[in-house]
């Protein structure tokens, strides 16, 4: 039985697509630039070449900044209270 390939839109009869050579069952993500599916393991979109960036790139610095801000605010409130 054939199913559509999520990456090249060809038809796949097994797990490996004959036209693009990719496993149709691998985890995939949606490219923000072109909106098409690309394997999660690939660093760039297989359609438009846009680079995928980890969400942790902005989440970790934001979390650190929130904690630093909270500590500075706590110290400031302590100083004002004296």
């Amino acid at each position: 039985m054939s199913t559509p390939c999520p990456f090249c839109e060809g038809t796949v009869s097994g797990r490996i697509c004959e036209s693009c050579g990719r496993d149709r069952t691998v985890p995939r993500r949606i490219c923000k630039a072109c909106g098409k599916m690309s394997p999660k393991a690939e660093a760039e979109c297989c359609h438009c070449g846009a680079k995928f960036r980890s969400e942790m790139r902005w989440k970790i610095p934001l979390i650190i900044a929130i904690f630093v801000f909270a500590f500075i605010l706590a110290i400031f409130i302590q100083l004002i209270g004296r």
Partner: protein
Amino acid sequence: MAKVTDEQVQAAFAPHLHEGEELKYWAFGVKQPNIFLLIGLICLAVLPGLIAVMLLTKNYYIGLTNKRFIVLTVKSMKPEDVKEVTEYDLSELSSANASTSTGGLFTHITIKDPEKPFKAKFHRAFCPSNRPNAMAIGEAIAA
């Protein structure tokens, strides 16, 4: 809690379904960071800790069709904000690599797959059908 309709979820899954495939059950779940990290962050500072936990929590919509178990990773509770898609053929899932358990509040579903592991918990209060659907999906994949 969230107002997510069956139609919204069906629409989110529709582009990922094959011809003749029908979504039988769906459920919303989360995967929170490690419990020790969670406690540590909240002990350090309550409000920033809660914000950090919120930022580090992953949201999922899972769906069971007659052929596959599909996991949609979403940005928020909205089903239309799909970031990632993971699928498992039902033939490759069994009690050996998939397990489920139900507690007072949560239904836990775990898939031990070396290439695409999955673990999430599904709260009963998300919507009236969340708990029975999560339990039905869990039973189907761990059979």
